[in-house]
Structure formats: C-alpha cells, structure tokens
C-alpha cells in the first residue's frame, strides 16, 4: 500500500454518510408533504404479486389523471407479499397505498379491520359476483377490498400425449372422458398411465387445491374453531388424493412451484393439470416451445375456484381517498378486461363476464382454444365460496407439506405424514 489517502477523504466519507442519512430523511419528508397537499401532486404506490396485468393500466391512469403518479411494486410470490404486508401493518408504516391480497389469506387480515379503509360505496355495489364480495365483507358491512380476478378452474391437457396413449384429443371428447367426478378423473388417469410413460397430473398438492376449494368448511367451522384434524372430510380427501397419486402412480410427484416442477414442463412428464385462468400464463411460460397443450371445458366435482385477489387500501396511507379512487378504477369491468387480455387474469366483475371481448378471446398456445368462453362457463359452475378462517393459510400450508412428504419426498407414508400434520396444527395453537 503506497498510495496515500488524504485525511480529508475520511472526512469526506463521513460527511457523505451524514448526507446519505440526511437524504433519506429529507426525501421521505418530501413525500409526506406531497401527500399532505391534497389539491396538487399525488403519488400512489400499488403493491401486487405475480402478474396482475396492471402495467399498462397504471400508465393509462396517470395520463387520465394529471398530477397523479403511480409506482407499481411487484412482489414475486403471494407468500412474500403476505409477509411484507404483515410487516408493514405491524410497523404501522411501509404499506403501499393499495395492497393486493389473495383470497386464501384475506380472512387472516379481516382480524385487523382497523388497519384497512372501508371501501364500501353505493357506486360499486353489485359490480362483482356475490361470493367474491362476501368473502371481504365484515359483519358490520365494511367492505375491505375490491375484487380483481377469480380462478375458475378447467382442465388443461397435452393432446399429443393423449393421442400417443390412444385417448381422444378433441376438447369436447376429452371433457367427456374426464367425466364429472374426481373418481372419473382418476379412472381416466389409470387408463392413461397404463399405456403411457407420463404421469396423469403434475402434483398431488395441486389436486388438493382443487378438491378443498369445493368444500364449505375445511379446516375451520363457522365460528372459526379449528377442525382440520377432526373433520372426516379432510382425512377422506387426503387419503383419496394420495391413493390416486402414489398407489395408482397418477402423480408425477412434483412439488408445485418447485424448480423441478418448472423444468418438467420441458419434458413429457405429465398429461393434465388443473387449470384456473391464471395458470394458463404459467403453463405457457414454463412450457415455452412445447406443442400440444389444450384446455377442456370440465372440472372434476363440478365447478371450482382457485385463487383470485382483491385490492385493499391500508388505513395507514396518506392518500386514502385517491387510493380508493384508483382501486375502484382498476377493478372496474373495462380495466379488468384489459388485464385479462394482457395476462389472462380472469375478471370477477359480473359485467365483464358477459362481455364480447371476454367471450371472443382465444389462446394460441392452447391450440386456439376459446379460453374466454370456456372459463366463463367454468365460472358459472362455481356456486359457492369455501369458508376460509384466519388460520386457513397456515393450516393449508401444513397440509400441503403433509402431501408433499408422501407425494414428492417419499419421506413418509400417508399415516405418518398425517400424524406430523396433526402435530403441526396443534403447534399453531
């Protein structure tokens, strides 16, 4: 070390330090001021996760409303978005002006009604499917969120693999083959795996999501008492899905969202998948270059909804009024239709469901299937919304773990894995 450093460099660094620390303070003070001034410039943040299809819409909103700037923060996964939101509610700061929330954990946040603005407004009444709105309405009539999309489920399939196995490939014929009930679906699967090297579906965990979303009360009863481990229906479905997955070898044994799962789309590993609307984009992304995907207008056990989200406005924000306006605009039928065209998120608005844009839309990757029409029909088949209490998300995570241990990891048999699930639920308190 021969180069000499001036002592002033250290001083300069120290000064820089104070400047940086000061700058942090200054900049946020500035935003506070901006926020306080109601007439002039407003800047809003919108926090979403995965793909909401809002990129162009937010630009459009800025153009329509001079003086409003919108920053879009995207979390990678719903899990991370949930954790980030929890953190900012706990800290009473740091939440975005609009926070997206998934249906599986919206009830958890209904425990903290004071933390959110009441969005009820006669103007938006009747905008959404009833069951969509009920899930975010509190007893006193407070509306905690505006519905964005829903996840009506169909079945996606690989026509090329069906053909190799000697099964029909045409959409309508496949729908017929898959039948009405889960047993029909599994029976078709047994027929398929008898002649094919591929599995019938990707993951037992995915099937589980399809199954429990058809049950009124899964893990918690109407008073939110935890019944997950005693509810006979849970154990029956658990045994059924694992018997089909492991004993009948219908499952490819891939943990959904794992890297193995993603890479498996490039190989001929499984022939069908449960397909909520938003899954179409996921398949297309993972299966880039693979030909043969199609979608059948049917779902085992009737209709089913998997996922879908809401926009909420945390009470800690400085621009509740402006934020509510933006949330209402984003979740209006016209905008959600554009989001659907951009990312395939299926609208939850009554008016959007009957629109020609939706019904006329087709998807090239899925063999030009009329996805809009199919999913709209699948949405009509959804008649109920399962009750999801405050512990739903964590209990479901524990049950997904139990299924993964048997289906993917093979560390347990169904019984020992169930015991671990029971212990995990008890530990939740």
């Amino acid at each position, binding site marked *: 070390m021969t180069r000499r450093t001036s002592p002033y460099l250290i001083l300069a660094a120290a000064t820089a330090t104070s400047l940086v620390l000061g700058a942090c303070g200054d900049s946020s*003070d500035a935003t506070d001021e901006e926020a306080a001034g109601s007439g002039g410039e407003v800047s809003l943040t919108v926090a979403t996760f995965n793909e909401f299809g809002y990129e162009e819409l937010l630009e459009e909103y800025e153009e329509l409303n001079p003086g409003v700037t919108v920053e879009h923060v995207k979390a990678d996964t719903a899990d991370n978005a949930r954790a980030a939101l929890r953190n900012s509610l*706990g800290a009473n700061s740091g939440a975005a002006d609009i926070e997206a929330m998934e249906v599986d954990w919206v009830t958890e946040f209904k425990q903290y009604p004071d933390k959110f603005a009441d969005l009820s407004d006669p103007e938006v009444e009747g905008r959404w499917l009833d069951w969509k709105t009920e899930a975010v309405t509190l007893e006193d009539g407070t509306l905690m969120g505006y519905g964005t999309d829903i996840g009506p489920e169909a079945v996606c399939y690989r026509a090329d693999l069906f053909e190799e196995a000697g099964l029909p490939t045409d959409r309508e014929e496949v729908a017929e083959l898959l039948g009405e009930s889960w047993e029909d679906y599994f029976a078709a699967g047994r027929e398929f795996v008898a002649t094919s090297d591929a599995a019938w579906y990707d993951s037992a965990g995915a099937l589980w999501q399809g199954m429990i979303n058809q049950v009124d009360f899964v893990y918690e009863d109407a008073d939110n008492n935890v019944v997950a481990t005693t509810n006979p229906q849970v154990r029956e479905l658990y045994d059924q899905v694992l018997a089909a997955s492991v004993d009948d070898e219908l499952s490819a044994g891939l943990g959904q*969202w794992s890297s*193995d799962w993603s890479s498996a789309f490039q190989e001929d590993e499984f022939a069908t998948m449960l397909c909520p609307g938003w899954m179409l984009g996921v398949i297309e992304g993972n299966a880039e270059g693979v030909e043969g995907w199609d979608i059948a207008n049917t779902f085992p056990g009737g209709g089913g909804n998997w996922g879908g989200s809401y926009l909420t406005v945390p009470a800690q924000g400085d621009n509740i009024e402006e934020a509510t306006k933006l949330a209402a605009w984003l979740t209006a039928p016209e905008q959600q239709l554009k989001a659907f065209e951009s990312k395939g998120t299926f609208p939850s608005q009554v008016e959007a469901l009957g629109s020609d844009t939706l019904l006329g839309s087709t998807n090239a990757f899925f063999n030009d299937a009329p996805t809009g029409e199919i999913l709209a029909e699948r949405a009509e088949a959804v008649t109920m919304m399962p009750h999801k209490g405050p512990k739903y998300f964590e209990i479901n995570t524990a049950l997904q773990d139990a299924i993964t241990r048997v289906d993917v990891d093979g*560390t347990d048999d169904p019984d020992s894995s169930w015991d671990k699930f029971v212990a995990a639920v008890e530990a939740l308190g």
Partner: protein
Amino acid sequence: MGATTTAPPAGALPPPPAPAPTPQPGRRGRGRARLARLDSTASPYLYIAPFFLLFIVTGLFPLVYTGWVALHDWDQIMGKGEFVGMENYVDVLTGRGFWKALANTVSIFVLSSVPQIMAALLIAALLDRNLRARTFWRMGVLLPYVVAPVAVALIFNNLFADRFGLINLLLETVGLDPVRWHSDRLASHVAIATMVNFRWTGYNALILLAAMQAIPRDLYEQAAIDGANAWRQFWSVTVPMLRPTIVFVVITSTIGGLQIFDEPKMYDSFGRGGADQQWQTLTIYLYELGWTRADFGMASAVAVLLFGIIVVFGVVNFLLTRRIAHDDGGRR
C-alpha cells in the same frame, strides 16, 4: 421517517478540534493548561464513546430485550400481550420443530466445518511451497469469497437440482443413481454444506497459510534430517504447530455456522426448509415463527435458546483452545 433527527450525522460525532492555540493575553497560561488537561482526560472517552453507544443501542440492548419478549405473548401486529412466564419456552421445547431444526443445524455445521478445514489445510500446504506466481494462486483460491452466499446458493441450487442438475448427471454418467437432493435429509445437508465450503475454504486456507509461514523452517530441516518425508513432515510438524490457528478457525465458524440462514433459506424456492423440515435450521425456524406465524414471543424464545447453545459451544472451544495453547507453550 425521522432519520435526520434521531441519527446523528456521522460527521458531527468526532469531537470538534480544540480551539487553535491563538495567544490570548492575560489568562492564557492558566486557561490553556486547564483546557489541555480536560482535553487529555476527556478525549479518550469521547473517542470510544461512539462505538459503545451504538453497540449498546443496536447490539446489546436488543439481545437482552429478547429475553423479555420471550416471556410474553407477543404478536407481530398486535404487539405485547400477557406475561406468560416460561410458556413460550415450553412450547418450543416440547414441539418437534425445534429439535429437528437443532439437529439439522448441527449436522450442516459438522459437514461444513470438518471437510472444510481438512481441505483448507491441504490447500495451505500447497500454497506454502515456493511457488511461481504466488499472488495469482492465492487470489485464485480466494475468489469464491467475493460471491455473496445468496448468489452461491442460486448457482449451487442449479448444480444440485434433482432432475437436470449437473451433479446428478455426473453421477448417472458413472453409473450411480441420482441423489434426491431435496427429499433426502442428509443429502440436502451435504448440498448446503458444499455451498458453505465453497465460499470459505480458500479464505481459511489463507489464514492457515499465514500461520504456516510463521513456523520456524529449522523444524522442518530437523525433521528432514530425522528422515521424515514431506507427508510425514506435514503431519508431525505443520499440523501440531497450527493447532491454535485451527481452533481459532473452528471457533469463528461455530459462531457463524450455528446461525446459518442464507444457504438453507435459498435452497428451494419456498425458503421454509423443506416439507419435512429436512434442511430447516434454527434461524429459519426463528424466522418462520416470528415473521410467518407472527409469534414474536416464541421466536424470541428460540433466539435465547440458540444463544445458549452458541455459548456452550464457545465455552467448550475456549477450554479446548486453552489446553492446546498450553501444550504448545510447553513445547516451544
């Protein structure tokens, strides 16, 4: 945010230079002497004050306060609840989560420290030779140190992927079965330990190299005269002389190793340590309790227990060091 008011600007912290000694007629002699005395008694304390203040506020206080939080029902969002005494500890110690995470942590620690030190020793011995382009080789082994653990994890996740991973491909090429890196508990520990070893082996090799170079060369000459070959010299001269340094390396990696978080957190895309907790370590368990289940009370209890475990490991190591250092002193 309030940073401007609460955080003192760093530039303001060093005591201002004492007034320049401009001659002041009259009382200059006495005044200056008193000022100089104050300067020399107070200055040292002013110089060490920033460290102690900041350390106490951001390091020591939170650590101590953890013990207090652990005695309460404490929700992340709702804040402090009732005083519950030892209930959080009982919940933690009677659940299987804690014990499994503890076993995983120790297993990963052993898998990452033992082979690492062996490899570091050998690399150091190679570097200790009279090499051409010495600096090049030393920098070469240090390269992984500048790759962040998170980036290391991303890269090794790809190499250890169950289906298309390079390592399973190589195993299959030589006729072995692919390893289920994410299902099998021990296999996952090996993979995670490999990430740790990748990053730190070269670093530790350089520490050991420095110690090796301090060994008097006449010890080797003596051994050579006694007929010991290079391998024997390594085991009978080098390794014993390095023991204090080895123990030092072990202690530092104990403190860090028992808190391992980055690599297991990144080992799959969920970050929860596996469906069967195969690679969930204690810090991941702590994070899960505190930030996923919002139970700050139980998370704090885990922190206190982990602190105790680290202290126990540290004391054992310290006693070991003392004994070995003693032995050494006798020989020198």
